[in-house]
């Protein structure tokens, strides 16, 4: 009997105790796994060797998992001016991204459009194609989370290879793709009964009750268009440190700078790219020092307007997925949901 069970992995299984541990062991033994691990009192996505290092109860991470595809520092190629250009070798190693929340999955879907359609980016796409994504629905909600308002969580509907839902001491595992099914193939599994979906839905609707933060999205385009000269921008200009943290931690920010790292022989070197940010003064500087966004409020507006207004015509979606990282990373506690609420309130009181 056991033979027929292992040969075909069911679409939906419930794993608890030993079986769950076995899955983690199997996957970490076979693949390079990148999962949520503790760093001080925060979390980061990092390579996992020992499955016990994975902290499935993480709320958020310093950098979003986009860093696996769009790396903070990426060598594009190394060059030798005497020999000609040499392409940088990339490892074709298959990776598993473990425990990605729905907000970050939606952000990856946006980056897939940014880097995959008009100007396909070979570096991003190579990293993306080599990665199996194990997503995890959110049954707990962080203080800065507002994915519910953005329609990007706490439940994920598509885009995953495997999807986990914590049912309290056991996990519902749903198969999204054949790549995902492959991860389960070494285990003896029985299909989960349909009724487990009722339990899943119960957990997720409980999670929906836990949100404290909310973003007003109705009429947000008009609201922003009509309030470009609102006094709130001047107030933010006085507060904002222009440190760039909000954009560094954003899962949908995609800007980068390209720099040459030349060796001391001045003949060889590497061309690399690294994340850049529209919040930084030098970002909009051009030749001879002219700068199109010298004023801090212009940069603050650029960030918020890009996320909430300019993404839509570019990518057919809002550029914010409600992960709350920009709020959590801000030394001045500047809160994008609060900015929008205050704009809406002031419009309301004007009427």
């Amino acid at each position, binding site marked *: 009997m056991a033979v027929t069970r292992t040969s075909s992995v069911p679409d939906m299984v419930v794993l608890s105790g030993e079986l769950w541990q076995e899955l983690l062991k199997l996957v970490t033994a076979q693949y390079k796994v990148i999962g949520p691990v503790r*760093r*001080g*009192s*925060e979390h*980061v996505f990092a390579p996992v060797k020992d499955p016990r290092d994975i902290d499935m109860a993480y709320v958020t991470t*310093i*950098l979003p998992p986009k860093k696996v595809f769009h790396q*903070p*520092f990426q060598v594009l190629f190394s060059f030798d001016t005497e020999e000609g250009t040499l392409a940088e070798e990339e490892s074709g190693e298959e990776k598993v991204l473990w425990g990605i929340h729905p907000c970050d999955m939606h952000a990856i879907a946006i980056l897939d459009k940014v880097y995959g359609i008009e100007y396909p980016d070979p570096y991003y796409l190579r990293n993306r194609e080599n990665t199996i994504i194990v997503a995890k629905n959110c049954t707990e909600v962080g203080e800065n989370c507002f994915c519910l308002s953005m329609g990007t969580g706490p439940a994920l509907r598509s885009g995953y290879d495997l999807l986990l839902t914590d049912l309290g001491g056991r996990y519902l595992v749903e198969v999204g793709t054949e790549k995902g099914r492959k991860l389960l193939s070494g285990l003896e599994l029985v299909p989960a009964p349909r009724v487990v979906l009722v339990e899943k839905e119960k957990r997720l609707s409980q999670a929906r009750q836990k949100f404290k933060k909310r973003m007003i999205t109705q009429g947000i385009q008009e609201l922003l268009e009509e309030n470009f000269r609102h006094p709130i921008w001047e107030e933010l200009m*006085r*507060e*904002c*440190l*222009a*440190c*760039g*943290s909000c954009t*560094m*931690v954003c899962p949908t920010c995609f800007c980068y700078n390209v*720099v040459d790292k*030349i*060796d*001391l*022989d*001045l003949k060889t070197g590497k061309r690399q790219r*690294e*994340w850049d*940010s529209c919040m*930084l*003064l*030098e970002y909009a500087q051009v030749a001879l020092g002219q700068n199109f966004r010298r004023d*801090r409020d212009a940069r603050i507006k650029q960030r918020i307007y890009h996320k909430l207004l300019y993404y839509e015509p570019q990518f057919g979606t809002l550029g914010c997925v409600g992960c709350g990282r920009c709020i*959590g*990373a*801000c*030394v*001045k506690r500047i809160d994008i949901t609060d900015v929008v609420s205050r704009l809406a309130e002031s419009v309301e009181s004007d009427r």
Partner: protein
Amino acid sequence: MSTKLKVSVYKLSSCAGCQLEFLNLEPVLLDLVGAIEFSYFPMARRRYEPGPYDIGFVEGAVTCGEEIERLKKARQECRILVALGSCACYGGLPSIKNWTPERVIVSRVYENSSLIHSIKAYGIDEYVQVDAYLKGCPVNKDELVEFIKGTLLGIRPRLRPHSVCVECKLNEYECISVIKREPCMGPVTTAGCGALCPSRGKACDGCRGPANDANAESLARTFSEYGLHRSDIVRRFRKFAGLTQEFSRGADAV
């Protein structure tokens, strides 16, 4: 390049830690001396070659009249003059004395004040024109090499102008300010150090001086919210670059 660039290294009032960084470049030092020649570098070479030099690195703050003279001579004999480290850039640590009367400072250290002719500590651009600033206490070795390479190639070297926070985030260091609520100078301080202090769990000290769009007043208000006394906030902004317009605004904010 047929002839090597001639380099000179001068020392004013300083701890010599910045010029020591040249010698700490061990892994690339041999490559470096293949490209440049240390024509005047008293710490490292007994033999001096006369100027003019292509690049002159000046370490230290100007704290007496005699140093002004030496600095002006250095300017004359160097094609490119570089402020090496935060003392030369802003006055650095010696500049903490600038807010106390000279007489009080002198008597705290010396028995016979008649021998001391000390003046307020300034960065070198108070007296001469400066072509480049390498910030930090001490300077960052990678930036030092990056600057030399840029000069050899005749291109603008890439020195990070933005806040330390960017490097902190790129390396995913735990945020000293948000998580620990410690008065970290990172948000207003120039990057380029790789967020060295936060990488060790310590708040940024601001040693590299103001970033290109430093909002020191706002950060000073946050320090106040963290429970810092006014005098402590002033001390934080005056430790390395209190003479700069940006950090003096931070010191005066609360």
